[in-house]
């Protein structure tokens, strides 16, 4: 009922939602999120590095936390790594639940985690050169509200 994938290739949001679309009549809600690379500040590309194995384990631990907090019938996370250019999809989170608020909140909780605390490292390419992104305080705030 949950699937977590880390991959370099693109994904199809419609196919991911279809996989969550349980036709049994027991779910009433599928909340989903697609994250895209923004071309802010002349970004040419970003490259995501990750720790294979540890990354999946840490995400799975947060999926388990989400399941303990909200009634979740199905959950899918796809996260891309490697070099991505503006407009490209980075991440998909989809949550199926009996209830819409549970689906929304679990998806938002997991996205806040993935964007701030998941074991990824970002390198940004601009005309001026390449830099590793540092941890952002604002995003840490978005995680704290779930504590």
């Amino acid at each position, binding site marked *: 009922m949950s699937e977590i994938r880390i991959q370099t290739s693109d994904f199809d949001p419609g196919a991911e939602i279809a996989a969550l679309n349980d036709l049994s009549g027991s779910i009433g809600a599928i909340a989903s999120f697609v*994250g895209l690379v923004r071309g802010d500040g002349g970004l040419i590309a970003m490259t*995501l*590095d*990750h*720790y294979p*194995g*540890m990354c999946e*384990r840490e995400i799975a631990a947060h999926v388990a936390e989400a399941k303990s907090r909200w009634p979740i019938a199905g959950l899918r996370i796809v*996260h891309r790594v490697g070099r991505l250019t503006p407009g490209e999809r*980075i*991440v998909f989170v989809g949550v199926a639940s009996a209830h819409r608020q549970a689906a929304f909140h679990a998806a938002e909780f997991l996205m806040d985690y*993935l*964007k*701030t*605390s*998941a*074991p*990824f*490292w*970002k*390198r940004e390419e601009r005309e001026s050169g390449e830099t*590793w*992104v*540092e*941890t*952002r305080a604002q*995003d840490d705030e978005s995680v704290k509200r779930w504590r």
Partner: protein
Amino acid sequence: MKLLYFAWVRQKIGVSEEDVSPPDSVTSVSKLIDFLKARGVGYEAAFRDVKALRVAVNQQHSAFDAAIGPNDEIAFFPPVTGG
């Protein structure tokens, strides 16, 4: 002992992973760092400011005084930035 490096740690050291066999006296992450710093300028640059680094022992976030042994997988990386 398997070592993994990510992000700029990997770039400074120049390899993404390696197997090392430090002397028996290397019983903690801190001692491993001292051992590695003596291996070359890349290592010295990567480990110059340990406050800028995080470490995982066997894929678990760990403290620098954590005990380590020859069969452990130890990873060094900057604070995660998320996806």
